[in-house]
């Protein structure tokens, strides 16, 4: 394995690992705050147990997310020093805001997790909410920096050296807002479905009412996010079409520039032969989705120099996966909302619950796929159009070795966290079983 590939894989694994924990850190506090509010409003003793059970999970995920995030802040320099040297002064600002948000998040979560009986109830509740708000802010700030890599702004590129730096313009680049919104909504979606699915499975097995409450709260969040996501996603795709036409072409596996460009469903692009096989074509749909008109011209990959193409197969498949999962989660959300509206008693039927169980990992899968689209679709550039990933690579040898260390550590951690979560559930069930029937709502 060459150093560049090893470095890219190390970055991909680190980010892919961290994003799961980051998404949970963004969305989970809101679920916790909802359950906590219901408890404080006196809607039943189960909500207190649920809040505490969720907060134990949050504590574990937050700790892993915090330390893996710290590792990332070093890894940028450890792997891509040339990138950081140029990019730091331009795009460091959202990171410094992110530092503040992360700090507030860490403080608020400390108060929330250990504040039971120590701070006043609604102050305590507020600390949970602040954790979530700071998490959302963190996500936005970090994505401002990533957006800048896709849509560089706020400087002039003077033969490889950035001059006339304007950190504010860099932070509020064209990609930042939509990318950030897309990710935050995705976090709500993934965590909502993840939590709803887990509690649905547990409810099927145990019939504890607390799991019904868990499904309900999480499903509301999941459904709201899933219905919003196609709209946000559409805006995000239009923004990519405008800013990074080559990325859009790779996402859609479009080789030839054309008017009335078709939207492909499925299909295996073959970059060497410059054509896509086995796809269902919807004529004109891509033109409409990308530019708002069925007759609009969409640029194909052949319009760009071959050495600037991203890996088409990976980008296209990841994009299809993300959109497919998004569509599925939208359908499940609409079905669930319809059930709750027309036949609420059917919502907790085994069929619906099993469907939710199946959906549990899908949102996270879509997040991973989406980041694959963003990052692989930007290749071969680390800063779109300006600095190639290969030019940013550290000169040190042995990246394969550090990649192996990180990979081993993260895989081990993932296994331990999974084990811990299952044990948390067992502990919760023991706690519930230990109570008299009357206490369980």
């Amino acid at each position, binding site marked *: 394995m060459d150093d560049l590939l090893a470095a890219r894989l190390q970055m991909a694994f680190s980010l892919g690992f961290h994003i799961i924990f980051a998404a949970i850190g963004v969305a989970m506090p809101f679920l916790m705050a909802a359950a906590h509010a219901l408890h404080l409003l006196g809607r039943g003793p189960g909500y207190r147990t649920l809040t505490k059970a969720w907060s*134990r999970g949050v*504590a*574990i995920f*937050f*700790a*892993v997310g*915090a*330390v*893996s*995030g*710290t*590792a990332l*802040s*070093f*890894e*940028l*320099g*450890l792997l891509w*020093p*040339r990138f*950081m*040297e*140029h990019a*730091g*002064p*331009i795009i*460091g*600002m959202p*990171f*410094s*805001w992110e*530092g*503040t948000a*992360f*700090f*507030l998040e*860490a*403080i608020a979560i*400390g*108060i929330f*997790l*250990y504040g039971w009986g*120590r*701070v006043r109830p609604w102050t305590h509740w507020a600390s949970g909410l602040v954790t979530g708000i700071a998490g959302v802010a963190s996500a936005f700030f970090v994505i401002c920096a990533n957006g800048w890599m896709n849509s560089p702004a706020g400087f002039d590129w003077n033969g490889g050296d950035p001059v006339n*730096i304007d*950190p*504010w313009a860099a932070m509020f680049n064209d990609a930042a807002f939509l990318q950030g919104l897309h990710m935050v909504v995705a976090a709500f979606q993934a965590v909502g479905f993840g939590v709803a699915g887990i509690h649905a499975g547990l409810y099927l097995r145990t019939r504890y009412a607390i799991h019904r409450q868990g499904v309900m709260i999480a499903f509301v969040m999941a459904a709201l996010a899933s219905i919003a996501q196609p709209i946000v996603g559409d805006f995000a795709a239009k923004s990519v079409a405008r800013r990074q036409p080559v990325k859009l072409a790779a996402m859609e596996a479009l080789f030839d520039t054309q008017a009335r460009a078709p939207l492909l469903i499925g299909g295996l692009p073959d970059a060497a032969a410059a054509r896509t096989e086995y796809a269902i074509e919807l004529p004109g749909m891509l033109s409409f989705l990308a530019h708002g008109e069925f007759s609009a011209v969409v640029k194909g990959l052949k319009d760009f120099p071959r050495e600037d193409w991203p890996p088409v197969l990976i980008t296209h498949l990841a994009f299809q996966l993300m959109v497919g999962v998004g569509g599925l989660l939208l359908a499940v959300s609409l079905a669930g909302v319809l059930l709750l509206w027309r036949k609420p008693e059917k919502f907790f039927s085994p069929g619906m619950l099993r469907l939710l169980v199946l959906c549990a990992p899908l949102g996270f899968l879509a997040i991973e796929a989406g980041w694959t689209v963003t990052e692989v679709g930007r290749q071969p550039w680390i800063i779109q159009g300006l600095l190639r990933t290969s030019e940013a690579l*550290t*000169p*040190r*040898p042995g990246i394969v070795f*550090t990649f192996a*260390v990180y990979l081993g*550590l993260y895989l081990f*951690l993932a296994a*331990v966290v999974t084990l*811990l979560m299952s*044990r*948390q559930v067992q*502990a919760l069930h023991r706690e519930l079983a230990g109570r008299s029937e009357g206490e369980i709502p």
Partner: protein
Amino acid sequence: MSWTRLAIELFLAASLVFYVLFAGADFGAGILELFRGSRRSDEQQRLVSHAMAPVWEANHVWLVLAVVILFMGFPVIYTTASTYLFLPLVAILVGVVARGTAFTFRHYDTLTRRYYRAYSGVFAWSSLWTAFFLGTVPAALMLGRIDPSASGFSALFLDSWLNPFGAVMGVFTCCLFSFLASLYLSGETRDEELRAIFRRRAAFACGAMVLAGGGVFVTAELSGLPLLGEFFAHPLSVACFIVATALLVPFWFNLRRRGNVTIERVLAAAIVALVLLGWFAVQYPVAIRMAEPITFERAAAPEATLRALLGALVVGILLILPALLYLLKVFKWETLEREG
């Protein structure tokens, strides 16, 4: 002279000092678990968990702040260090990840004794490991053996930190952190016997720290770095050196007499902060000593960036400080008042 840059340098210095004073003590608590002996050893561990759990994540963020200041404000320092000191940095990161997760897992996953011991082991050993490597980094920045023009893996990536001076600095850092931890912990309990245990540990750690500190100067001289002379060449570092040494006297007196715990903790924190400040004074305005030294001035980002960074830091600190004080008030001061 850029005032913006100076203000940012002060923020950087402050976040490093706070990182050592708060997170350093968390590492120290882990190290102390390795030396907890058999007497009331479970209670010692429980005290560590109890003291650290609500605050360790916030303590840890000071490092993130320092890293962010470096890569936005002084990117060349950040990229040079992360290229040529990648081995100790990777070691630190592995340690940070292992320690944080093991500590949390121990707190939330205490179903069986066996797991508790495994998590505790990882927590304690990774605390020692991380603290040691944390010490090798400033050693490399001081010693000046980072040489981008060298050839060969060892000359580029090992020689700058893997040497007697680096090793002694690593040990010194471990002692420093344990010293802080033992005093903070002795103040976290009202149990006189437990407090006495941690005070004995503090006396031991203090002795070890002074010895290792002497070792730092000796190995520096042997490595061709006239560190003692440099300390005495700069008025600020002389002052820090003398005051820190002088403070050891009331500290030691208080410790022997079993006086006020809070005074002890404040004195210990002051001694450690002075050690750091003294080092900053010796090192400044250079950040990385090498053939062509990297100064803060040379490494600084353009003025527009520095101004934006300073703005973010000022707003950030205005948001963080009240929250942080509230956190400490709830979990540190009020606990003492209630239990006291």
